[in-house]
């Protein structure tokens, strides 16, 4: 055995030595590069390549006379590639001849590229040329043709291509008789049908081939010249894509869900359709659906119309505004109760290099049925009372919305953005039930039965335009914007209630019945305009000056009628009309330092409010007030080192009083809780301070951040309540001492095992002091909340993942009126989400959520565990289909409970809500469905 080993080693060794000898590195190649007329091509490049894969071995440059010598080459075959500008690169295969140390190639004649072709392809179209032997190919997409052109129009522009009037294509005087698309025949191979019908935009490459005739293939010689043929390559899928999906599900408790969307897009347009309907309140529309629907218009830059202290020029706007019925369909919170939701829309965008146009139509419908039982305990300085309410609310909302956005870049310096938005909505509302008030000893003081119903119709239209200009002087820019908005609303309500008041010992005291109808017409008109100018001061400083103007006209006409024995009598005490004009001017300037990752800005503005109001209703009243405030601003941002960021901000804002709080309107739609207005209100001033630092290390996957904040308000709008002996509360808004708050937020995340086990910890502290006025007593509420969060992401392998989280918050609240009301509340939330790949390609996921609420003072605790689970399988060619069985609220414990403990109120509301149900659903997805276990607990890529 050992002998064999030796033998083998010896053989291998001798082989290597032999090989080494054969390849000894002293072979030389020389030659002389000239053009076809034998003039030397000085300084031509000569490359030595491996013939198998064209990899570069070495290179030399010829001398002034075109002579070159390549030394120290191994004695193996090579490919020489000689190149010179304007000439076809020449390939020469060289093989060593045994015993000859020098290979002299002699004169190497290079062939010149036709100058016209060279100029047109290389210089004008900037298209790469591919050289194969003596023929040249080029990329057709580099030849620009107008939109809507056919392939024929494109071919007319290509050098060396001729298209006759009848569409016959020829090159080098030879007709092209065969055209293929992606290698396949197009309509029987008639070249004209392909070139006349296909759009030029869809083509990525035009390839010209010379096809050997059958005769030549067989005999090696041909009596006819080889045929020319053309192949058109279509552009790849992504530039010209479509995707979409359809999900349908049905289940127990008469539950059903349906959702679908379809998108089609290419380089110049995007079209999408979306639709969704369900009575589960789940699987509605979310982030992904919003992005699928709005496409490139999901987030827009340069739409901001209110210029101020901020960066001013380049930031993205995105609105979560509840008034926007479309966005609330995508991002609205889940409602308690039994919902029925439906929505659908169409989005179309079109764009070219300078202009973008987007239009959207969206419809939404939702109906909510909610039966609620509320228990509320009220602690007043001199009395206690308790509410027991049982009410039912049925609401129906319908809305239509149309959006238009246009952006045009006149050139690199001037941009105009126009936004138009129109909405129509209809709301039907019915609220009925019983309210019971009782005193400390359990004696009922009031029983009310009510039945209110109403309808609201509104239309809303607004338009805005922003024009921005940059100047040649870098850093200088200006902007001007204007907004026009109009709202019209009609409201009709029927109010019916029977209020029984009792005196002590349940003796019936009095009956107060309300039967009213009221009609309200509201009209708002808003005109806004802003201008801004940024001027660079040196290289590192900028000054920014802005002026904002806003004029809001609010008109309201409310007629109330008492229903008495089939007659309608106008109630002059409650009927009213008003018109208000709120005008704001703000002018400000700031100085900004911006250099090497540090940005500091300091600024000051003067804000002037003019409030004009006319009020008619029982009394006539008019208001004419002016307020002026200074608004300072400071911000500091720095990220000098990589992955470290430090910021500090101070900002002030002034809020004008709300119109309904300013006018002395008495709102008695709830006769036990009457709200009145306060014409003496002045603006509330809010001061905010913020400091933050964050640092991350992407190599170790650690991150740390700390935030500190403080805020206080001057002349804060505070609710003042007075409760009379019949327990009727009268409330109004007044200016009072401000809220003070401070707090911090800390977080730290790190991997315990890199990529498999990650822990995130966070802690927050909030301290706040606020005031309320009850029966002329000041009640100061001081509360400290400590909270902590622990998140554990477990992703050990491709078949299982788990995300665990625990959140605990403890708050300690102290009241100045009566310390016996002080309370400690602990809320706990634990959740777990587990995804696992089972057998036969079946996947399962489960979500468990457990809420725990403890209030020591009321000896109250509550636990709500919710478990949802589903199993699913992806199947079909390219994983287009999914079938899924889900069970929601397996423990049947969903209560729809809302607990509130603040100020002098502790309340618990239980709303009838959907409990355990099962659902079987099917999904079809054009792009296929991932059958991997979800390993991400976040959505950024």
């Amino acid at each position: 055995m050992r002998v064999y080993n030796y033998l083998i080693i010896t053989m291998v060794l001798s082989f290597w030595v032999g090989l080494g000898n054969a390849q000894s590195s002293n072979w030389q190649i020389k030659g002389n590069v000239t053009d076809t007329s034998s003039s030397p091509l000085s300084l031509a490049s000569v490359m030595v390549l491996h013939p198998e894969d064209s990899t570069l071995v070495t290179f030399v440059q010829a001398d002034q006379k075109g002579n070159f010598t390549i030394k120290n080459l191994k004695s193996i075959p090579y490919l020489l590639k000689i190149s010179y500008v304007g000439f076809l690169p020449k390939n020469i295969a060289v093989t060593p001849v045994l015993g000859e140390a020098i290979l002299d190639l002699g004169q190497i004649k290079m062939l010149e590229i036709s100058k016209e072709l060279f100029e047109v392809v290389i210089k004008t179209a900037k298209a790469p040329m591919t050289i194969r032997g003596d023929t040249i190919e080029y990329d057709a997409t580099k030849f620009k043709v107008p939109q809507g052109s056919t392939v024929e129009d494109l071919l007319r522009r290509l050098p060396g291509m001729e298209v006759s009037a009848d569409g016959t294509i020829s090159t080098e005087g030879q007709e092209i008789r065969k055209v293929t698309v992606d290698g396949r025949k197009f309509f029987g191979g008639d070249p004209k049908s392909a070139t006349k019908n296909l759009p030029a935009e869809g083509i990525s490459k035009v390839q010209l081939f010379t096809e050997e005739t059958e005769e030549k293939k067989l005999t090696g010689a041909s009596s006819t010249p080889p045929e020319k043929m053309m192949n058109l390559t279509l552009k790849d899928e992504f530039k010209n894509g479509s995707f979409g999906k359809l999900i349908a599900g049905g289940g127990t408790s008469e539950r059903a869900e349906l959702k679908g969307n379809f998108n089609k897009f290419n380089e110049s347009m995007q079209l999408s359709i979306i639709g969704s309907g369900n009575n589960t309140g789940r699987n509605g529309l979310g982030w992904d659906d919003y992005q699928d629907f709005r496409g490139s218009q999901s987030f827009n830059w340069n739409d901001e119309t209110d210029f101020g202290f901020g960066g001013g020029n380049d930031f993205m706007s995105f609105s979560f505004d509840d008034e926007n019925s479309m966005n609330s369909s995508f991002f609205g919170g889940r409602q308690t109760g039994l919902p029925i939701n439906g929505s659908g829309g169409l989005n179309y965008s079109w764009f070219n290099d300078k202009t973008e146009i987007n239009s959207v139509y969206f419809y939404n419908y939702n109906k909510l049925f909610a039966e609620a039982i509320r228990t509320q305990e009220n602690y007043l300085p001199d009395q206690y009372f308790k509410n027991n309410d049982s009410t039912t609310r049925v609401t129906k909302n319908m809305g239509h919305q149309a959006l238009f956005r246009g952006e045009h870049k006149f050139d690199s310096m001037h941009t105009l953005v126009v936004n138009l938005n129109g909405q129509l909505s209809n709301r039907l509302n019915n609220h009925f039930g019983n309210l019971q008030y009782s005193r400390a000893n359990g004696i009922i003081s009031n029983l009310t039965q009510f039945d209110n119903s109403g309808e609201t119709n509104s239309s809303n239209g607004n338009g805005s335009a922003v024009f921005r200009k940059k100047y040649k002087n870098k850093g200088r820019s200006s902007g001007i914007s204007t907004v026009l908005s109009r709202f019209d609303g009609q409201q009709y309500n029927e109010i019916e209630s029977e209020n029984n008041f009792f005196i002590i010992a349940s003796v019936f005291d009095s009956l107060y019945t309300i039967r009213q109808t009221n009609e309200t017409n509201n009209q708002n008109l808003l005109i806004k305009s802003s201008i801004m100018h940024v001027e660079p001061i040196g290289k590192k400083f900028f000054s920014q000056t802005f002026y904002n103007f806003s004029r809001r006209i609010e008109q309201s006409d409310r007629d109330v009628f008492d229903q008495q024995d089939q007659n309608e009598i106008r109630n002059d005490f409650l009927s009213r009309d008003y018109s208000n004009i709120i005008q704001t001017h703000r002018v400000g300037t700031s100085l900004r330092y911006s250099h090497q990752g540090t940005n500091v800005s300091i600024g000051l503005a003067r804000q002037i409010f003019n409030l004009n109001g006319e009020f008619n209703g029982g009394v006539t009243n008019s208001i004419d007030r002016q307020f002026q405030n200074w608004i300072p601003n400071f911000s500091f941002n720095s990220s000098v080192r990589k992955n470290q960021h430090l910021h500090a901000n101070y900002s002030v804002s002034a809020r004008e009083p709300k119109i309904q709080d300013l006018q002395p309107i008495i709102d008695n739609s709830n006769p036990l809780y009457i709200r009145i207005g306060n014409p003496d209100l002045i603006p509330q001033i809010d001061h905010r301070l913020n400091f933050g630092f964050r640092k991350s290390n992407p190599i170790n996957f650690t991150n740390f951040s700390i935030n500190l904040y403080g805020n206080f308000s001057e002349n804060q709008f505070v609710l003042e309540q007075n409760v009379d002996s019949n327990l009727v509360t009268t409330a109004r808004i007044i200016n009072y001492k401000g809220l003070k708050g401070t707090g911090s937020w800390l977080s730290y995340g790190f991997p315990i095992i890199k990529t498999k086990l990650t822990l995130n910890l966070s802690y927050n502290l909030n301290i706040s002091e606020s005031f309320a006025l009850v029966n002329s007593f000041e009640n100061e509420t001081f509360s400290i909340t400590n909270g902590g969060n622990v998140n554990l992401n477990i992703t050990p392998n491709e078949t299982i993942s788990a995300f665990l989280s625990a959140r605990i918050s403890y708050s300690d609240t102290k009241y100045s009126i009566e310390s016996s009301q002080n309370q400690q509340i602990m809320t706990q939330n634990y959740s777990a989400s587990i995804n696992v790949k089972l057998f036969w390609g079946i996947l399962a996921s489960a979500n468990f959520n457990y809420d725990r609420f403890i209030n020591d003072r009321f000896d109250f605790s509550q636990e709500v565990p919710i478990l949802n689970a589903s199993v699913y399988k992806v199947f079909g060619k390219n994983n287009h289909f999914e079938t899924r069985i889900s069970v929601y609220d397996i423990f049947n414990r969903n209560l729809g409970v809302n607990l509130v403990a603040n100020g002098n109120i502790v309340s618990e509301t239980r709303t009838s809500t959907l409990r355990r149900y099962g659902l079987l659903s099917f999904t079809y997805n054009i792009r296929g469905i991932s059958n991997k276990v979800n390993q991400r607990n976040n959505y950024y890529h």
Partner: protein
Amino acid sequence: MKTIQIIFTLLAFAFFSNAVFSQLSSGRIEYDRTIYWTKIMDELPYLSKEELARNKLTWGKDDKYTTQYSLIYNQNASQYIESEIQKEKSDQWSWRKEQLNYYLDLEKKTRSDLVEMPDKIYYVESPEPSFKWKILSEIKEVSGYVCMSAETIDTVRKHKIVAWFTPEIPVSSGPEWYSGLPGMILELDIQNGSCVITATNIIKDPVNQTPTVPARKKKYKIIDLAKLHELQTSYINQCILSRRNPYWNMRY
């Protein structure tokens, strides 16, 4: 028609004479480096086809970002740095600048690069790497120079690299860390157009501009190229396992 022919002839003449008589052995080349984020996401294996299509739809129209770089070169050395003037830089907000300074000594055939990694800045000292260049048969013009194409593989990032080099500038260097071709690289196409670096301006013999070796500072950790590649490979692998895009924090 005749005028056009004359113009062509003149153009061609100017072009050819330029090629024959000038040898540009020192100068400065300005490059535009454009990165296409949604194309980069195509190579993240953890994203589903639907997520990729959604990315393209939302961001694809407007996903490119361009930065400017300068390559200062002579026959002995070249230095690649971020340009003073950044065209797309926000007028009013200053972002932190990436620390980048790539120096190639063409005589000693060594590199001395200042490379920013996600955690710290490294000073990488190594012999000039030998790329396995495959010479292709395409030619095209970049910034007035006719270039030939060559292809190699970035073994760390697993990217296909296509370089367009011109023998008219007989300096074997180029942008980023690429070199070793019979002429200056004027364009780089990384991973089928995910990132394109292209010369926009070629300035001959600028006054007072010579490549200089980046200064060694104590805060820089000195490593060799093999170690850098090891760090980069390990970082990319961990990011992919953690479902993060490695190129948010590391140069593409």
